[in-house]
């Protein structure tokens, strides 16, 4: 299938991009195009206008804010994988990036694009919720910050308002003793996940969180996961997965339990 006709603009300033996105036309943002491309070809989205943000150099910038790192929304998965951007996570983000789809997708796919697309099975949706990152969002009325943990509200739906654009992510730095664990269950490397378990144990910052990812909608965040993190504790894991909406005895329940269990076992 091929996309229907649409207009295309490639602004070079954030202001003109926001102006295009805030206009009367049904506009969609084109970042890496790795999800939008197929959606256009399947005619599942038929926008009047594509706003290509590849000309917005400020969205590719990164900066160190002391207790956090800000990554521009256009940073690609492979830039994170290759360590070409500052790392707040002691190698965690690079490990995650390496497991996203395939290298060809990682070369084009972007951090902001992945979050804006909000596929529940996407790695960054789960990981940014786990790290308590915030999204920096710009719109006609200015800038606001949204916690990643509540940004995704359902499959392919977010708190982003019409006309708004994700410009970057602010990711808190992990302390020196922080340990992270991640397990993604997919049928083949690079395919969509059936289940994701993500855990962090950062005693210096008092952070012990877990996220059940690849859900039916929003990632399920467990802000105080101390009990889960104690190894071998299957009952609390099972309870948490049930709370995340998966009924005991189902395939989904089993694989999500296994994912969290293995994420805990992989804490490093």
């Amino acid at each position, binding site marked *: 299938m091929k996309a229907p006709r649409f207009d295309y603009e490639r602004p070079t300033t954030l202001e003109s991009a926001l102006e295009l996105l805030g206009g009367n036309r049904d506009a969609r943002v084109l970042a890496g195009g790795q999800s939008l491309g197929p959606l256009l070809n399947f005619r599942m989205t038929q926008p009047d206008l594509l706003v290509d943000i590849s000309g917005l150099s400020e969205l590719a910038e990164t900066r160190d804010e002391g207790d956090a790192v800000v990554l521009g929304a256009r940073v690609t998965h492979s830039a994170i994988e290759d360590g070409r951007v500052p790392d707040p996570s002691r190698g965690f983000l690079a490990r995650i990036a390496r497991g996203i789809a395939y290298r060809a997708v990682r070369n084009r796919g972007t951090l902001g694009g992945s979050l804006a697309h909000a596929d529940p099975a996407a790695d960054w949706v789960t990981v940014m919720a786990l790290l308590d990152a915030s999204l920096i969002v710009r719109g006609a009325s200015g800038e606001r910050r949204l916690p990643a943990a509540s940004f995704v509200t359902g499959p392919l739906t977010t708190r982003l308002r019409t006309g708004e654009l994700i410009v970057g992510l602010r990711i808190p730095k992990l302390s020196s003793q922080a340990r992270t664990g991640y397990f993604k269950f997919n049928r*083949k490397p690079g395919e969509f996940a059936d289940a994701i378990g993500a855990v962090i144990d950062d005693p210096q910052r008092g952070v012990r969180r877990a996220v059940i990812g690849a859900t039916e909608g929003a990632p399920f965040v467990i802000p105080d996961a101390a009990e889960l993190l104690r190894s071998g504790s299957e009952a609390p894991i099972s309870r948490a997965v049930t709370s995340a909406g998966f009924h005991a005895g189902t395939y989904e329940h089993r694989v999500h339990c296994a994912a969290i269990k293995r994420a805990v076992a992989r804490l490093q």
Partner: protein
Amino acid sequence: MTTAGVTATAEGGKDIGGNGVGARLRRKEDARFLRGRGEYVANIAMVGMVDVAFVRSPVAHARIRAIQKPTDLGQHVFTISDLTDVKPIVADSGLRGFKSSSQYVLAHTKVRQVGEMVAMCYADSRSEAEDLAEKVSVEYDELAPVVDMLSALESGAPLVHDHWGDNVFLETRVDDDLRAIRERAAITVRRRIRTARQSMAPLEGRGVVAFYDRRLDQLTVYSAAQMPHINRAGLAGCLGIDQGRIRVIAPDVGGGFGYKGILLPEEVCVSWLALKLGRPVRWIEDRFEQLTAGANCREHYYDITGYADVDGKLLGLDCEAMVDSGAYSSYPFSACLEAAQVSSILPGPYRMERYACHTWSVATNKAPILPYRGVARTGVCFALELVLDAIAREAEKEPYEVRLANLVPSEAMPFVNITNKYFDSGDYPQCLRRAVSALDIPKWRERQRHAEPDGRRIGVGLAIFCEQAAHGTSVYFGWGIPMVPGHEQCAARLSPDGILELRIGAHSHGQGLETTLAQVANETLGIDPAQVRLIHGDTALTPYSTGTWGSRCMVMSGGAVARACAEIGKRVRHIAGKLLEVAVEDLVLEEGEVRVAGTDRRMTLAEVAHVWYRAPQLLPIDVDPAGLETTMGYKPLKDTGTFSYACHACAVAVDTELGTVELLDYVVVEDGGRLINPMIVDGQIFGGAAQGIGTALYEEMPFDAQGQPLASTLADYLLPGATEVPAIQIDHMETPSPLSSFGQKGIGEGGAIAPPAAIANAINDALKDLGVEMLESPITPRRLLAALAAAGK
């Protein structure tokens, strides 16, 4: 040239050097393929070409009440009312009781599957054609669909074809009196076994570019096709024009696997439109169309009972088998290509006393079932080999021991089995033993005694089968489908500069025929393979052939090339004899030269050709006028087919928490007779085994209760990739077939036959202590965890 006798070589598959039969010659065609310079249908661009998009049914079963064309561009939209001169595709079998279906190339009163074409739209681009298709409105009166083949047979089920009275294309029976063996059987195992519907997935989908040549008054159709001469015959029939007015060209084709051995309604529609418009017309199938509307295969159900004595020696089999044939009978192989074969091949490589089998080819509201590598054999091997393992567990014996007690022994070869199949040659027990030894089953049994550190469970499994290939006239005549293979032909021409042109009507799309047939020419004529050009896949340039299917080309086209080259050699020696003034008997063909034996007098093939074409004044008056061009036909004297065979053995680790399976080791021991090019055979086996691994663990086209196909992208339809296919060890045996020109046997499909059975047996071996037995492919995490949960694990 026939090789007689059975001499299995211990060193099968080793490069014997040279450029002839048996050499591991690098593939000539790879010069373009590996550089991305293949020429496929979608590479063809023509001035004034228009693109076609089809309006396809979104529902599985409905009556069409009305079709509304858009008011502005309605003249660019066609329905069946516009194609009144086009006949539907009909592919009947001559088997008694076969019910005929008419597949109209655009829906006629009713749609019977999701994706069935309702209207054809054209525009200057595919995108605009799809815009137009979106504006066509169709009113459907939905009918209850027939989705599952088992419920399709219940009384009161909706009817796919109203006038049939039931949903059965064909029912066949092999009857036998099983009472005696039932009484004697110490072991009786009954299993209900299923294989999922799949979608074969060549890298390139189907595609057509058609245009009308006014000068030649000829429709030229470029099509991604395996059987261009059959496509031509089918197109001529549907369009009602002479075959001579149609030229079908299959250019480079990116994998066929059976999907491209079918006349598609899309080809007929595009050809009709090219004739109507007088402009080139193109349709390139996309993956969505391929998965949801076109490429469907494999779906089998077996209710099978094996009877054995206390040691597992097979007394007999009793089976009811069904194949979900989908909505229409596809041209030319028909809707019974799978089920009707099941009854004749189910006994596999084993001996038994009694055998009964009852089959149904069932019509449902799904895409027609099409041939896919291993046709019927993959499902049959799965059912039979799972039963053999179940018998072995009952007998408390190693599965290979039970098989050794039942395989046809080498001293019985050639052997006529219980369904009258003629096994031409081979040593099945040796094949099995070599697989057991290559996998080192005792090593895995030892490992199974200790718990794995990661908690996974280890299992070993194997499967053995034999595969009839290159079967010919006598076999297909009995089946009575629109295509009966006869003599395979090769037109050979030594050109003025000594290049040998070989023209065959079959097509090479991964088989490496441009290389292997050059090796056959080398073997026969002594010519350098670099001096040989294979011309294939063009009905205007090649002799008639039923094409590439049934693992037949190396036997059939190989035999035809050998015969044509022998004739060219005879003529070369005749001319050279005149020129060198020696007797023909004193001349030998070696290294591209014709030599006077025992002397240094010689002429190159190019010199002989030069005289014949460009310096005929040198020829004496009595030279034979036949020249250096000939067409020769070939068919083995006995055309029941070569029987290649193989044993696949593997070790797996099963993760009972996630339901996943890792292949730890995989061994294939196979016997393709004399191998023309062992390297190419290795490639065929690797590729086939990868597809078999897909069947075993990944590939499935599920449908919902309304008949909606649920896998519409390759994110939903999982294919094995580099990380899912282990390094496969191959061990070749080479027992020459007494039937073929060099002893070669067809092996193109075999790799895809045994993996589901071998892998399922290994999984069941790993899970036997848990009381879990997997009987349905693919064995996905979801199925495995459900089975574990059902067993309380």
